[in-house]
């Protein structure tokens, strides 16, 4: 069934690199927070009460009315999964790292194609998420909206006429919605315009974060832009707002890429072919270096300078080179150095099968 497939493969629907503006927008995500009426928020629940919440969600999944939406939805307690499998769900962007804290009291619901996932007992009782490739915010909201309607037929939500959907943190109250896009912005980075553009986005009320953003640098020139305000705007307004800001960023990124292509063609070409060469022949590869090289290669792909490696393969590789997937495929614990060797090995094999 779906969990087995999910945990044995690095692939997920959002990696298909299809949909509008897929040359810059890797994925679109809409997530809504919902809580059950009359039950304290997850951080106050003991094991038994947490289990009650999971049970209620289980019931709602059985009572579904739109089988094609909720059909194939499978629920699993996080405690039933191995630590590696839990991490893999994070790496595939299906759950947040926060769901791994106190995982015994938490659960995850996945649709077979991994487009819909639900986190149970994260900061809120339910966080319903839809993840699609390319710029498809409206489509994602439409799916979320219907899944939410279907669940609400069984579940009593904590809702107030005045304040909307009540959430654990007041920064999410109202629509409870976070919409986001994952953008690849190497053009703005190389032309040194990233700071200005991202600064403007923040002033417009959006939040910007790097992918897997642990340090201060965004890995692989990937940035997630999301709405900050959830109260006082309708879901459609939030989505339209984010979409129009995204389109402005796209215009800027395209302009930067064109400038690079026209003015520094050899420099960019050199960079892209070096990345290809390194990935194709490297014997030791840290994940940081790999992500940087992927970004260069992705730019070459988007500028149509190189076509050997499809974006879908690069998207999958971003998950395959993470420690969890490496250790899983090796079937044993690995030191940092062993991981770097295996990572180079895995990338090289992937590239060998592709035409240059």
């Amino acid at each position, binding site marked *: 069934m779906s969990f087995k497939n999910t945990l044995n493969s690095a692939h997920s629907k959002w990696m298909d690199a299809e949909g509008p503006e897929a040359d810059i927008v890797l994925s679109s995500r809409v997530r809504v927070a919902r809580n059950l009426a009359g039950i304290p928020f997850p951080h106050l629940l003991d094991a038994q009460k947490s289990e009650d919440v999971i049970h209620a969600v289980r019931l709602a999944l059985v009572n579904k009315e739109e089988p094609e939406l909720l059909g194939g939805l499978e629920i699993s307690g996080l405690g039933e999964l191995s630590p590696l499998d839990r991490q893999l769900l994070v790496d595939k962007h299906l759950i947040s790292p926060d769901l791994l804290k106190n995982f015994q009291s938490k659960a995850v619901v996945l649709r077979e194609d991994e487009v819909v996932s639900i986190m149970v007992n994260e900061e809120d009782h339910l966080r319903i998420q839809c993840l699609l490739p390319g710029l498809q915010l409206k489509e994602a909201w439409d799916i979320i909206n219907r899944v939410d309607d279907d669940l609400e037929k069984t579940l009593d939500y904590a809702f107030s006429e005045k304040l909307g959907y009540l959430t654990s943190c007041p920064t999410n*109250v109202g629509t409870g919605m976070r919409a986001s896009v994952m953008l690849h912005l190497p053009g703005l980075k190389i032309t040194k315009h990233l700071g200005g553009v991202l600064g403007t986005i923040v002033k417009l009320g959006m939040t910007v974060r790097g992918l897997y*953003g642990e340090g201060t640098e965004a890995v692989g020139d990937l940035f997630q832009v999301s709405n900050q305000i959830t109260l006082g705007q309708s879901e459609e307004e939030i989505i339209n707002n984010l979409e129009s800001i995204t389109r402005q960023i796209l215009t800027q990124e395209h302009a930067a890429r064109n400038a690079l292509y026209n003015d520094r063609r050899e420099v960019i070409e050199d960079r892209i072919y070096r990345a290809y060469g390194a990935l194709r022949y490297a014997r030791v590869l840290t994940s940081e270096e790999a992500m940087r090289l992927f970004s260069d290669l992705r730019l070459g792909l988007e500028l149509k300078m190189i076509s050997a490696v499809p974006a879908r393969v690069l998207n999958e590789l971003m998950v395959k080179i993470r420690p969890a997937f490496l250790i899983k495929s090796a079937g044993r614990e690995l030191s940092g150095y062993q991981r770097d060797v295996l990572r180079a090995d895995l990338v090289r094999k992937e590239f060998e099968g592709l035409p240059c």
Partner: protein
Amino acid sequence: MLCERCGQRQATVHFTEITNESKQETHLCEVCAGEIKPQGFVFAPQLSLQNFLVSLLNQELGGGGYGIPADTVRKCESCGVAEGQFVKQGLLGCGSCYPNFEEKILPLLRRVHGSTRHTGKVPERTGGRARLVKELDKMRDQLKEAVSREEFERAAVLRDNIRQLEKSLEEGAES
């Protein structure tokens, strides 16, 4: 062409910045191009929204402003979370915390969201009155449209439905 920044070396890097109104070209040498850092934007993932909220709360409610230890402050009747606990974590205990701590939360919402009124989706089954109010708004729009199109039969039906809905809303408000 010489570099615009140092005026010494040959300009080999040419940037074209396109803003809303104008196209601005910058010509730099390799050295200066490498030195220019992104401006204006500080990438700081450690400043999360929740941390920000906690500091706002501390500023407004806690921080010794009242001189009352956190745990002696009022508690939510439903979940038992104390006001001070909320200030510390930035998380509320349950849905009832919102009405129970309303006078503290509303100013906060105004600062964070610029609003204190939900205008989005209303759940179908548990939406209650809000659902009716939204439905009423929709029917009023339809009525206007029907009248402007001179579809009077349809307008009459809509008008009756609106009256009925208004009445049931009023009754609901009294009880």
